[in-house]
């Protein structure tokens, strides 16, 4: 490479083609630089430089590319465009808008299309927040546009631009390319900016996560909560419910923005989100869920290298909204496909394979991805967060494989999916004995002060009962349930209630699919109350069969579906009190 002078549009030559990997000679480019390959101008990225050879991964199908074809440098690293219009969009792995692609070339994805990520024609009403003479620091907002009814999209100076405003436009309609603001050092600020996807966007300070990401799912919120700015892994064999959970979180999480990455998964799942989300209403803002969602769809039959890029594209967009001071949740389904894309590229490069053929840098790539989560003080002085929830698809459902293991080393909430549960149609099929949340201790106070002072006590009791059930089950396997003393039989019964009433949650039922934290707590509390009262009754010699027949117990089993949940649970608690009084009074 020559003396730091950017050599725009220099030309090299293809030397070798093997799937998505192209080796070229005489290419004057930097690592991570974007290049165009062959007469179709396929997009590629320089991933290695080895003496006179430059190794490029190509984001499109390389069929009929041949030695001798041209490679043209662009002088730019692989970047995303960040600006208004991201919300509600669906992109491929390298941020090409899929609707635009279909306008250009129909139902199928052909090659070589160049469509910018941010619409150049659309006009947005810009509201300036700064005046001539103001100083603009790195990442500070100069104004905003209303991206939709509920989202102010702040137009920020890029993280590497600051200075004094010598000119700023008035309120009015502008396109992405219009210059909104000029600084004394000659730089300008437009409505959109570019950012290289592999470089985390800078911030001032990282904080310790201290509030839960409320999901509306009982087993997650109560037993294994995730913090805003935290990381979670959802490993599980095929069909165990990873995608349904991710989609549910995309629907119900209390965040401002959701970035959903379909990385190497099914096309039909993306269209699912795309047809459903515009119809669903955000419970907080009342606007369509699609308005807060950015979809990245690089399905399993789309080019492998773009699959690798899709994760970076997604996280960069997430960081951008974080920088506006918003809470962002990012779902990546599935990180295993991302790791496999790395493996495929690496093996084409004939690199020394590590564990199970994955490249030695698997672990560092995974951790630098999850490291981009966090709750931060932004450059502009706001507080924003990115929460990452990654699905992992281990071969054979075996959690000892490298991707799961490396992911668990970094992520702090672990929702272990269990095919034994999913086969019984126990959903979400999160195994309550294996899963954990390392955030719980720091969130406990939040729950106790915001929801109920008894939160922790009740939760602990529930966990104990589930733990105890597992121990007792082993005995039951040997001698049958009848051989157990009645207090232990009762534990089994309460555990069953916990599983069937509390842990199970129907994602396709309009009421059950989302429970507020208050609801979650009062449901759990009622079960635990039943457990305590029942224990007392058994100690006083009441037969267990009588407990099983109580009306309050039967009513508890269906209350989670009720629209008038609060009223009903109150009634059940009253009935419970009366019934136990009567039992003991006999």
């Amino acid at each position, binding site marked *: 490479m020559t003396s730091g002078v950017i050599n725009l549009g220099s030309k090299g030559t293809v030397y070798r083609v093997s799937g998505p990997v192209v080796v070229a000679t005489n290419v004057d480019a930097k690592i991570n630089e974007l290049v165009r390959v062959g007469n179709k101008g396929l997009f590629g990225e320089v991933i290695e430089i080895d003496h006179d050879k430059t190794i490029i991964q190509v984001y499109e199908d390389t069929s009929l590319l041949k*030695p001798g074809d041209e490679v043209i440098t662009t002088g730019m690293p692989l970047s995303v465009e960040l600006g208004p219009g991201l919300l509600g969009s669906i992109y491929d792995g390298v941020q090409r808008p899929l609707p635009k692609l279909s306008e250009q070339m129909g139902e199928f994805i052909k090659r070589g299309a160049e469509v910018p990520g941010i619409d150049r024609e659309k006009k947005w009403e810009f509201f300036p927040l700064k005046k001539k003479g103001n100083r603009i620091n790195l990442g500070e907002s100069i104004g905003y546009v209303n991206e939709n009814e509920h989202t102010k999209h702040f137009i920020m100076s890029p993280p590497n631009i600051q200075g004094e405003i010598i000119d700023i436009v008035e309120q009015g309609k502008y396109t992405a390319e219009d210059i909104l603001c000029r600084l004394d050092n000659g730089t300008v600020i437009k409505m959109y900016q570019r950012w290289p996807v592999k470089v985390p966007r800078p911030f001032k300070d990282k904080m310790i996560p201290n509030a839960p990401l409320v999901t509306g799912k009982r087993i997650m919120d109560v037993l294994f909560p995730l913090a805003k700015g935290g990381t979670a892994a959802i490993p599980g*064999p095929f*069909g165990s419910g990873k995608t349904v959970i991710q989609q549910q979180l995309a629907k119900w999480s209390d965040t401002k923005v959701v970035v959903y990455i379909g990385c190497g998964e099914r096309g*039909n799942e993306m269209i699912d989100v795309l047809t459903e989300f515009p119809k669903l209403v955000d419970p907080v803002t009342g606007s369509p869920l699609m308005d807060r969602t950015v979809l990245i769809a690089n399905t*399993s039959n789309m080019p*492998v290298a773009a699959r690798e890029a899709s994760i970076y594209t997604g996280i960069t967009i997430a960081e951008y909204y974080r920088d506006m001071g918003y809470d962002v949740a990012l779902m990546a389904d599935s990180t295993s496909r991302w790791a496999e894309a790395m493996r495929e590229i690496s093996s084409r490069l004939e690199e020394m394979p590590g564990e199970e053929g994955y490249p030695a840098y698997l672990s560092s790539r995974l951790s630098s991805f999850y490291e981009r989560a966090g709750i931060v003080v932004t450059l502009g002085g706001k507080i924003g967060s990115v929460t990452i929830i990654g699905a992992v698809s281990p*071969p054979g459902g075996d959690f000892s494989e490298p991707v799961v293991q490396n992911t668990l080393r970094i992520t702090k909430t672990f929702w272990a999916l269990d095919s034994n549960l999913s086969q019984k149609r126990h959903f979400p099929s999160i195994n309550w004995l294996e899963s954990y949340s390392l955030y719980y201790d720091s969130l406990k106070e939040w729950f106790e002060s915001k929801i109920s002072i008894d939160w922790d006590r009740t939760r602990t009791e529930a966990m104990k009962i589930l733990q105890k059930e597992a121990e007792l089950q082993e005995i039951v*396997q040997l*001698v*049958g349930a009848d051989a157990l003393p009645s207090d232990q039989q009762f534990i089994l019964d309460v555990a069953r209630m916990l599983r069937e009433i509390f842990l199970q949650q129907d994602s396709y039922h309009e009421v059950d699919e989302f429970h507020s934290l208050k609801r979650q707590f009062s449901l759990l509390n009622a079960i635990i109350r039943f457990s305590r009262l029942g224990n007392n009754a058994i100690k006083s010699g009441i037969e267990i069969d009588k407990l099983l027949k109580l009306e309050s117990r039967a009513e508890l089993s269906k209350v989670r579906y009720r629209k008038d949940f609060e009223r009903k649970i109150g009634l059940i608690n009253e009935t419970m009190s009366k019934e136990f009084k009567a039992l003991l009074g006999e």
Partner: protein
Amino acid sequence: MKEYKTITSVKGPLIFLERVKNIGYGEFVKITLSDGSIKRGQVLETSENKVVVQIFEGTRNIDKNAYVKFYGDVLKFPVSYDMLGRVFSGSGDPLDGGPKVVPEARLDINGLPINPYKRSPPQEFIQTGVSAIDGMNSLIRGQKLPIFSGSGLPHNELALQIARQATVLDCTESFVVIFVAMGITEEEAKYFISDFEKTGALERGIVFLNLASDPSIERIIVPRIALTTAEFFAFNYNMHVLVIMTDMTNYCEALREIGSAREEVPGRRGYPGYMYTDLASIYERAGKIEGKNGSVTQVPILTMPGDDITHPIPDLSGYITEGQIIVSRDLQRKGIYPPIDVLPSLSRLMSKGIGKGKTREDHKSVSDQLYAAYAEGKDLRGIVSIVGKESLSKSDKLFLDFADDFEKNYIAQKSNENREIQTTLDIGWRILSKLPEEKLLRVSDELIEKYIGSFRDAQNKAY
């Protein structure tokens, strides 16, 4: 077109050439052997001084004197409406003695990925007449739903039954069935074809045959040729196409063969690391497209080596397809046909195609309840085998009996029995009615009243 006589080595299904100029990746190739015979292939890797070509017909008899012709284009397959009713070889040549097909179009056999934005969500219920599928794991038009089986199990019979009986309710168009054989025995192939002929399905069907005795590398292209044909009928002629592919295991073995000949770093159990991506390039060619009437539905069949569902072939397939139908040796031993184990089976698109206005309002509830009850019954079998039936509570005994009842009366049916979905659902309620009502947590009281109630009334009348 360029022609070379510069083969330097021949290894497994691959040939290596030197001193070639500017050959494209994926180019289609013809090789003329010294005896005049011709083989076909595709470029797997190309560089300035070396090209690797995989030969579909196998490399037997190839030597350094063979001429290799590069076509400058990818392999394109000629398709035409007249293919209906015909039988072809694994590389698309007529096997039925009929004339060559006059092509309407020549299409790249690799197809192109459907823009996810242009997919339209599959949602029409296909009635297969098989209760274990219709009631518990419904097949939806545009779905890819494989059958995971084991050697010697009646998956072929099941596939044929599906092909014969599949209909969409309230829809007069029937399916075009495309049948793809990969490495199956001649006997199996005859079994399929004669059944197709007997039932008249062949008139609206197309068969592609690669038999066990045919070259294994050809298996890499058969499914692609077949799916190219399927897409042509679905998206050019707006027809509904059901593609049955058997046996995907043989396909994967061919993939492994190529990988090892290229001395690639193998992935799990010796299969290539890119097998997921490769299988996806087949399975994802199912679906529907916005604004088009046709659809491609896939029922791939694979035999799980050692009946092991964690083997990479079923495992990677399961990660791509939209569910799976599992054929079980246990049920087969019990004499139950079709021996479908519904518990590990799954249809991910089921909920989109069932319910009020589609099948019946109670479909989801009754299937959930059957699942839960059967799972419980099966768990109890485990306990009974250790502690004996005596130790079970009365209600547990009912669940134990339920499991038997379910297998014998719901799952089991004749291979020519075509059950209406209503019948399937009613059988479900009938056997559920033997369980205590308070244990039926997955169904609402209203449904219990409506379906078990009416069933009881009917029973009362009968006596």
